[in-house]
């Protein structure tokens, strides 16, 4: 059974299940959850625990989805780290400093992400420079522009914005400790699941990551698809920026850098191959949840916060090894009888 058959309907054997890379991600999640449940006790198991790690999962998860699709297509996007603050600065500046209507401020913030994604996509598809390098360059450029813009207009590196109640309730509200971002995240999970596993375009993404030249020869519009994926990641990173403004009621020039590594970590722990060509939304979802549980479980467990880096690092290495083993198994011509 292939990793991309999210809608698998035939009888799933145990053996086939064991060969799916998501199975490793599921086991990883369960182990990590039990570990922190034992140490963290009832508080971690109850609503406070769930809300704290789900809130973290939602933010990084919204970015991990498109970053995962890009990785499946064989590309990286580092610029998400500067799109988050750029978009929140744009929204806060328009809404807070210039008193524009919330919808205008939000659309402008999202537009920043789409535009940067378009620039990334064009640079990657029109040149032969690896996307890792292109998006690092774009990240620094956007960081500089955001800082310059904020200082020029506002003379400060942070801008505050108090959204109207409706906007606040849709994008920046907490319900019993749960952020509304969780719903945005779950909605996007459904959208990305459709795109990758149900729609025909998902096949193009796998093919581009598997062998870009063959995909192009097969008539797949590889450049347009790559540009669209970069725009999706720009959009999602910008959405996180906008959600942050609505939640915290202010935008900071700095911050957002953590999303770069964290999103890649969620994706890799979720079983996506660093070399592209394979992965799944369920895996990315599990990887994100695992990352968030470690990130927040530390506090509930009363452990030294630095231990989270050790655990995350170990998880990452284990994931990379098991993903690679999956790839080796799937591509060895040793025929199973």
């Amino acid at each position, binding site marked *: 059974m292939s990793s991309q058959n999210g809608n698998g309907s035939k009888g799933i054997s145990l053996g086939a299940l064991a060969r799916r890379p998501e199975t490793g991600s599921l086991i990883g999640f369960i182990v990590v959850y039990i570990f922190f449940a034992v140490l963290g006790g009832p508080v971690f198991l109850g609503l406070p625990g769930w809300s704290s790690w789900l809130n973290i999962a939602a933010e990084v998860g919204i970015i991990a989805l498109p970053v995962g699709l890009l990785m499946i297509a064989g590309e990286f996007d580092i610029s998400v780290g500067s799109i988050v603050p750029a978009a929140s600065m744009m929204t806060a500046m328009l809404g807070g400093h210039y008193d524009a209507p919330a919808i205008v401020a939000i659309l402008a913030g999202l537009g920043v992400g789409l535009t940067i994604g378009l620039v990334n996509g064009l640079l990657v598809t029109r040149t032969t420079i690896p996307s890792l390098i292109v998006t690092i360059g774009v990240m620094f450029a956007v960081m500089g522009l955001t800082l310059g813009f904020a200082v020029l207009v506002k003379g400060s590196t942070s801008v505050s914005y108090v959204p109207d109640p409706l906007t606040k309730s849709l994008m920046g509200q907490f319900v019993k400790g749960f952020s509304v971002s969780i719903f945005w995240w779950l909605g996007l999970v459904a959208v990305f699941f459709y795109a990758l596993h149900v729609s025909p375009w998902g096949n193009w993404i*796998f093919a581009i990551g598997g062998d870009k030249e*063959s*995909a192009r020869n097969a008539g797949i519009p590889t450049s347009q698809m790559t540009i669209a994926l970069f725009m999706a990641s720009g959009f999602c990173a910008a959405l996180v920026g906008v959600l942050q403004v609505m939640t915290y009621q202010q935008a900071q020039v700095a911050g957002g850098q953590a999303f770069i590594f964290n999103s890649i970590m969620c994706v890799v722990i979720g079983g996506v191959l660093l070399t592209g*060509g394979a992965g799944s939304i369920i895996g990315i979802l599990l990887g994100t949840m695992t990352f968030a549980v470690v990130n927040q479980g530390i506090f509930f467990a009363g452990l030294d916060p630095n231990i989270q880096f050790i655990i995350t690092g170990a998880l990452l290495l284990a994931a990379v090894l098991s993903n690679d083993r999956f790839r080796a198994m799937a591509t060895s011509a040793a025929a199973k009888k």
Partner: protein
Amino acid sequence: MSDKAPVLEMRNVDKSFGPIDVLHEISLKVHEGEVLCLLGDNGAGKSTLIKTLSGVHQPTRGQMMMDGQEVRFPRPRDAQEMGIATVHQFGGTYPLMSVGRNFFAGAEPTKGFGPFKVFDRQKANQIAVEEVQKMGITRITDGDRLVGGLSGGERQSLAIARAVYFGARVLILDEPTAALGVKQAAHVLRIVNEAKRRGLAVIFITHQVMHAMAVGDHFAVLIRGAIAADFRKGEKSREEIADLMAGGESMADLEANIEGYMETHDGHPPPPAH
């Protein structure tokens, strides 16, 4: 020969990559139910020629015609839509994708679902397995199986099965037999003959003169990007074709030279020329 216009024709096509001229003044045609064999040494420009025919590259100069009408293929998809299916020399399959997904990459069957398109996995798998089995690969029964687990020959057969399925009018195969064993190669030759019988125009690229002679109606020899010879079945012997491919220098002449040298040099062969 029929009076009908050739299905596919190149007229004085040049192709350069920047300053590098790869094809010069190529004129070729292939008719319905005919196999054109393209022969030539490594680097002669065979792959570049068929990439130009299949929309991967654009000709620098010259014309391409289909049924007597000038055509242009800005993208591979445009060539496919005109019924030209190509199996390129390298790649063509995606190891981490299933047989069904590989087969339909870029031409996925979909089920209608309002504005939402749904990839029809069942249909894709069923057709893919059927077509691959027709190709003699009976070991593949599960369309969900990853292609990475297949042998090189099976993968090549999958790529060919795909081209045969989608190639409504022209089938282009770039060295399809190079990676195959004797039995599998014979199988590919049978497929070529079958496609020809069904009225397709086939362009078959190979290194092996025997393979070419087994299926070819028409032969073109490419040397350094130019057509060095263009002849029909029965007009040249196997040796003559091999000589042409070797760069025009006759193997027989070469042997005569060596013998002449040995006679005048006490039976020693000439030192190798560099």
